[in-house]
């Protein structure tokens, strides 16, 4: 299950999508908009996505987790403006063995950050920045 949406994410939906009665555990990663970034006070984030490719890449991640570990994985990512404290990404992996669930969930979020075409714009008290990998690039634009 993958979901790329403007709506508030529901972490439990990711759990429900992956768990079966033969699974003994799940590991969930939830990324949340935090109040500070790179020493600056953040008021919110805006996520931009290349939607068709992002969805395809998320589906491939889910497929890769099934192939590498034989495990079910769900990925939810939010787009658009997100205020501090709300979730931007949810990844859930179900397993009967905890070691693999940790490993697969970790791999999924690491790979998502590199290979899923989504970018964030940080609104801070010192200006608005596009975050591109390690770079933060000041922009004049207002929230779109």
């Amino acid at each position, binding site marked *: 299950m993958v979901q790329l949406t403007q709506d508030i994410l529901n972490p439990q939906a990711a759990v429900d999508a992956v768990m079966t009665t033969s699974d003994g555990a799940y590991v969930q990663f939830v*990324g949340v908009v935090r109040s500070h970034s790179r020493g600056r006070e953040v008021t919110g984030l805006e*996520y*931009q*996505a*290349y939607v*068709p*490719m*992002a969805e*395809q890449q998320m589906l491939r991640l889910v497929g890769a987790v099934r192939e590498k570990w034989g495990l079910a994985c769900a990925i939810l*990512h939010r787009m658009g403006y997100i205020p501090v404290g709300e979730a*931007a*990404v949810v990844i859930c992996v179900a397993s009967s063995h905890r070691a693999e669930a940790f490993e697969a969930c970790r791999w999924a*979020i690491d790979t*998502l*950050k*590199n*290979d*899923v*075409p*989504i*970018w*964030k714009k940080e609104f801070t008290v010192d200006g608005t920045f*596009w*975050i*591109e*990998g*390690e*770079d933060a*690039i000041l*922009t*004049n*634009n207002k929230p*779109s």
Partner: protein
Amino acid sequence: MIVRVLLFGHYREAAPVPVGTDGLLTADIPEGSTVATLAETISSLDPRLSDLVSRTRVAVGTEFATLETVLSAGDEVAFLPPMSGG
């Protein structure tokens, strides 16, 4: 031939003409051009686009491609700066 170009992150804001929220530009390049030719054309449009090739991966349609990929009329080419989802 006409191809469509998608820019993301700060590059979209650096585009020489206002682009919609879908980030679409069009470019007219010779038949049989590669991604490299297109990238050169785009990066010459504005000083802020000059590092486009060194800072982006490219996709044709929704598949990663390379600078050597040959383009066809109507292709949609996306220049993808380092991602920051999650």
